[in-house]
């Protein structure tokens, strides 16, 4: 504390200065008053005019969507300029009249537009037609006096230069729907914007979307821009590099041709998806430009389900390809040694039933390698029966069956690995031991997706390294221009002995060299694989297979990896209703693998 007389002096000192605060304050407030006079009195008429005509329009500027490339930089999705037709609501004096007049100039869906206009928005722009032709645009432009409020805006339209190829992976885009607008996930996305609706377009939408810009303009009485008041440029979305090798992808789809089926090719070491083919497909260009309701219904109702991505959504019995998992179970659980043999007479009697081998005469003396290479059913009936369903289920799950692989595409299915618990819960019945015997050769309740089988075979190829299949290789950030490679995924090691894998590989190699898939034998690369035949309906033994309706015929499976010594690619092929895996699926895998191995050599040559 300092003494009170000094305090009093200083107080007087301080208070003497308050006059300056007062004067300063008053000066500024007078200035503010003058500013208000300026705005409200001097320029009042001008602002009244601006307010009355509502002549400022705020226009959202769509950014260019990020581009999609394959792993080698081939363009998969791009943007092309196109004319969009909008209705600028403030500038339309009479909506009914405009809607009545529009069909005179262009082909538009008036009921659909009326429905969209019914939401009681008073301001802003509503899109009424996508992708005008140059002729249509010219026609509208020359009649703008008769069409007040109808505005043409050049925007980007998504385009897929490869057409049908890789359609299920790339996906397509479309205007954000009413239900998506209510979804908190799309909180930042304005109505009317185009977003990814399927495939990686959907999964990585937040990368591809970019940031909208905004332009404020002053318009004339017809809603046409007079001058720009402020502009914020949009920021284009990030470009994505996929793991897909488009050369391989095209080949895979061409190999399937007209047949329904799927092919998945993986790099077994890092999970890169090199090809993910599903046939039949569709042309994403048709879907991205605003498909007509009729065409959409046709696509949905097509009995061949072109919109289904069979590679991740198709759930099939694995058939004999499941013997790979069974072999691992047999060896790891020491149910039977690799060199121990049994004799196969072509049948396995169990209870009152007799389970038959595909080879009536039997395979004779069989060890594990032979059981795999000749796909001896009786061998696996026996070991399956000894193992029991729950251990089989345990090993299946270790190989990733019964659960989604987590690929970055929506609506992946998980397949089904049955167990005692599952059956009690979902069927309300106990497990019958006879059912285990069907499971042992990949039939019964068991179902898998092609990508799961590709994962199974890649785990074997790498001696037990479990990777998550991935589609994204890198991102080029628009803001910085830097290419950011996705980090290598973390792999997990299966707790199985290395000998287990070497024994299985021995069997799988023999499948191609002397077993059921001799047609997969290649002159340029050693291939190991397993055939499978997924039963669609149980046929009587004596029925002639060629006479069975195609939709009841079995699906052909082949899963493989190559080269045997140093695996570089893992493949799963399924061709629906084509019967035997060895004849219908194995040659496809061989062609694909050879193309990959050849291509790799070429690329190395090229880079030298």
């Amino acid at each position, binding site marked *: 504390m300092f003494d009170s007389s000094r305090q009093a002096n200083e107080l007087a000192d301080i208070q003497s200065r308050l006059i300056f605060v007062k004067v300063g304050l008053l000066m500024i407030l007078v200035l503010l008053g003058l*500013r208000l006079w300026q705005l409200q009195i001097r320029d009042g008429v001008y602002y009244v005019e601006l307010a009355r005509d509502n002549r*400022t329009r*705020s226009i959202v500027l769509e950014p260019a969507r990020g581009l999609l490339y394959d792993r080698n930089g081939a363009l998969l999705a791009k943007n092309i300029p196109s004319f969009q037709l909008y209705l600028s609501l403030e500038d339309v004096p009479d909506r009914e009249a405009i809607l009545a007049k529009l069909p005179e100039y262009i082909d538009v869906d008036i009921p659909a537009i009326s429905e969209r206009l019914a939401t009681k928005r008073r301001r802003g722009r509503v899109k009424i037609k996508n992708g005008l032709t140059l002729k249509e645009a010219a026609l509208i432009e020359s009649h703008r006096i008769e069409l007040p409020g109808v505005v043409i805006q050049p925007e980007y339209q998504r385009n897929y230069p490869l057409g049908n190829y890789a359609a299920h992976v790339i996906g397509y885009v479309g205007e954000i729907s009413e239900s998506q607008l209510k979804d908190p996930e799309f909180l930042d996305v304005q109505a009317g914007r185009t977003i990814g609706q399927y495939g990686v377009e959907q999964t990585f939408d937040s990368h591809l979307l970019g940031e909208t810009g905004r332009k404020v303009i002053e318009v004339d009485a017809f809603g046409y821009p007079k001058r720009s*008041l402020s502009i914020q440029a949009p920021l284009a979305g990030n470009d994505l590099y996929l793991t897909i090798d488009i050369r391989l992808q095209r080949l895979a789809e061409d190999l399937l041709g007209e047949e329904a089926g799927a092919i998945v090719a993986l790099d077994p070491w890092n999970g890169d998806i090199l090809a993910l083919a599903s046939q039949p497909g569709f042309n994403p260009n048709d879907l991205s430009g605003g498909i007509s309701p009729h065409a959409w219904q046709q696509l949905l109702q097509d009995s061949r389900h072109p919109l289904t991505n069979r590679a991740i959504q198709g759930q099939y019995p694995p058939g004999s390809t499941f013997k790979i998992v069974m072999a691992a179970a047999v060896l790891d659980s020491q149910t039977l040694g690799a060199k121990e043999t049994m004799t196969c007479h072509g049948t396995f009697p169990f209870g009152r039933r007799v389970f038959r081998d595909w080879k009536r005469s039997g395979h004779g003396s069989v060890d594990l390698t032979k059981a795999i290479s000749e796909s001896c059913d009786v061998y696996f009936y026996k070991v399956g029966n000894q193992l029991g369903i729950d251990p089989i289920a345990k090993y299946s799950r270790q190989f990733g069956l019964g659960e989604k692989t987590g690929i970055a595409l929506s609506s992946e299915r998980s397949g089904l690995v049955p167990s005692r618990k599952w059956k009690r819960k979902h069927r309300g019945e106990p497990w019958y031991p006879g059912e285990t015997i069907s499971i042992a050769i990949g039939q019964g309740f068991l179902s898998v997706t092609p990508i799961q089988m590709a994962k199974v075979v890649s785990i074997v190829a790498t001696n037990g390294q479990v990777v998550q299949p991935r589609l994204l290789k890198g991102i080029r950030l628009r803001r910085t221009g830097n290419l950011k490679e996705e980090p290598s995924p973390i792999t997990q090691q299966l707790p199985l002995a290395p000998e287990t894998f070497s024994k299985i590989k021995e069997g799988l190699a023999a499948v191609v060299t002397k077993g059921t898939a001799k047609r997969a034998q290649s002159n340029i690369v050693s291939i190991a694989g397993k055939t499978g035949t997924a039963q669609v309906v149980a046929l009587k033994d004596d029925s002639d297979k060629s006479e069975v309706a195609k939709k009841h015929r079995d699906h052909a499976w082949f899963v493989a990896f190559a080269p045997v010594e140093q695996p570089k690619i893992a493949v799963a092929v399924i061709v629906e209703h084509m019967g035997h895996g060895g004849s219908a699926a194995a040659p496809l895998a061989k062609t694909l693998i050879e193309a990959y191995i050849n291509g790799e050599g070429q690329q190395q040559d090229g880079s030298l």
Partner: protein
Amino acid sequence: MNDNVNRRGLDTFDWCFLGIIAAIISIGILSIYSVTNANSSTKFPIYLKQTTWMVVGTLAFLVAAGIDYHKFARFSYLLYGAGLILLIIVLISGKTSRGSQRWIPLGPLMVQPSEFIKIPLMLTLASYYGTTSREGWLRRLIIPALIVLPGFLLILKQPDLGSSLGFLAIFIVIVLTVGMKSKAFGFIALAALMLFPFVWGGVWGSLHGYQQDRILSFVDPSSDLGGKGYHGLQSRIAIGSGQLLGKGLYGGTQTQFQFLPEGHTDFVFAVFAEEWGFIGSLVLLSLYIIVLLMGLEIAFNAKDITGSLLAVGVVTMLGFGIIVNIAMTSGLAPIVGIPLPLMSYGGSAMVVNLTALGLLLNVKRRRLSLL
């Protein structure tokens, strides 16, 4: 001990003071009602929330006016410390809104510590100069600056450019009032400070849009980039088109057609000016001027340094908000997001402003006693 309170109750000055404050708040609620009522279907509309905040603020006003301000001053360092801790909490776990962290959720309420800390700041500075000799630069400037700095930086970090500038203004005006050496220097410094928005506006206006964006996004990412031109323009159209007499209550097309953004918060003045015109705006401006002049009158008649500086602090805080907000809505200053005191919607600001006004009345009512 002799309680230094003027026991005669409220005099004409006091009633006048209270009446004007009530009038300004009512005008604010009316404007908020006009903006939000049209499109509101909620059970608890914003104008009722603001009314509730007025009631809460009135209680705070009574407490701030009733207890001798020396008692507040005694605990000012403690209060300021608590405010700093709250600001740190905001930075660590605060609620993010439009790119900046400003709020602490307290049950259903969102508390904005950057508003509340202004009261302890004024109390601390007033009590510091009231109890310490002003000899030498260290005591007169450096130590107070060190007191203010952490609060200023914490608010700037949120980032809340507007509030941090308000914080700085309180400090600068108090320091100048305490320590001006020559009257001429003081006059120039003060004028420069007060003209700051206009000078800024001039320099600012000469920058290109993208340069402005860069500067603003550097200091305050929450500021309305790009849309700024739009907001500013719509606000000027609203004010200008009000002309002499205004368009009448609910008559503002800019407001009712939602051309004007944030009509109930930062741009509430534009709403009022559109509806009530130049006459209405001048009346409102005059009401604010009277409150500020009364505040300075209280500072001039205060019985001690602490009281006088406290009053100066309150006047600065309110004056800064009023000046910058109106300058911003009328296109004289960049849009930095400062609410109009007593009118813009916001619970924290309402309670803080009424508390500050309560302190002002507190100083006035204790001025008549002997030293």
